[in-house]
């Protein structure tokens, strides 16, 4: 297994699966303005997926392209963290998940801009501006709803309690990460934890929310060992057209 291919699938599968999840809000958001903003975020993430999985396919050199990777792999070949495949829940939980992910995404892209692999540095440079905006928006929404009404505060606290056990997986380090860190291609994920904690602590304090004490972390997504049952359902919907009509274009 090529560590670079594995790493690129992790980046691209995170953006693909989260992009699909966020797109599920299209036409269902609480207000029109949020509907448009969420659709924009989903489109940004799927656009980023084309870059990451496109490079993954190039590195793999097996004749596949980004579309083939996205639409014809099964759940056990996906390398996204569990956090992004979880169902949306209510709008508050969706924005909490977005904020927890964006805070990490923004940090990792800042590091990847200095990657020794120019192609990775270029993707990180291009996507980091979109992600900076995603973070600004999700952070403000989490703060607004957390420090909002009794109802919105309770929902945001419930969302944080539910999602926080999925944060730890973002900072797991395995042989793939060690190889890439050694080559200066990507940062060791564990090294981002302090900066991440500082960010999240600040955001949650402003949002008047309490971060759970436990660092217990659900794992199994980024190495594909054990995804949640939700990923298969998501792929069934996302991949249906290419599965039923292989190679269909329009």
């Amino acid at each position, binding site marked *: 297994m090529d560590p670079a291919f594995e790493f690129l699938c992790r980046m691209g599968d995170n953006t693909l699966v989260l992009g699909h999840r966020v797109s599920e809000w299209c036409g269902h958001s609480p207000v029109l303005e949020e509907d448009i903003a969420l659709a*924009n975020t989903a489109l940004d993430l799927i656009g980023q997926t084309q870059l990451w999985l496109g490079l993954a396919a190039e590195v793999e050199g097996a004749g596949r392209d980004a579309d083939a990777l996205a639409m014809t792999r099964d759940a056990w070949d996906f390398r996204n963290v569990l956090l992004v495949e979880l169902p949306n829940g209510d709008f508050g939980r969706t924005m909490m998940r977005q904020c927890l992910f964006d805070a990490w995404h923004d940090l990792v892209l800042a590091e990847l801009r200095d990657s020794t692999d120019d192609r990775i540095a270029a993707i990180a440079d291009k996507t980091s501006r979109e992600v900076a905006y995603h973070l600004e*928006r999700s952070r403000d929404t989490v703060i607004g709803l957390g420090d909002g009404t009794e109802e919105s505060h309770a929902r945001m606290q419930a969302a944080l309690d539910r999602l926080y056990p999925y944060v730890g997986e973002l900072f797991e380090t395995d042989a793939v990460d060690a190889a890439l860190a050694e080559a200066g291609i990507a940062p060791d994920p564990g090294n981002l934890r302090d900066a991440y904690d500082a960010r999240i602590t600040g955001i949650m304090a402003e949002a008047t929310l309490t971060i759970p004490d436990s660092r217990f972390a659900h794992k199994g997504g980024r190495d594909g060992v054990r995804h949640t049952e939700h990923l298969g359902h998501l792929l069934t919907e996302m991949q249906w057209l290419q599965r039923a009509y292989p190679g269909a274009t329009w």
Partner: protein
Amino acid sequence: MSNEWPLWEIFIRGQHGMAHRHVGSLHAPDADMAIKNARDVYTRRNEGVSIWVVEAARITASSPSDKGPMYDPARSKVYRHPTFFDIPDDVEPM
């Protein structure tokens, strides 16, 4: 208390525009979110370089029933329009 967020009027200055132009309106809980929503609703295709938001309730508008007294007297006074000057070719933005 109303559950609706207040209405904001959105003004955007385009890439080559000299002034902000009214582009539409949207709802948002506060001015900061109105700017963010405007970014998502109106500048997705690279339309703007600057956004102004104004709470719609803060705008004082002329009354439609005053239309006659307000505007009619200007109608027959063609000399108020600076149309009798030749504009040199090298003056671009007019």
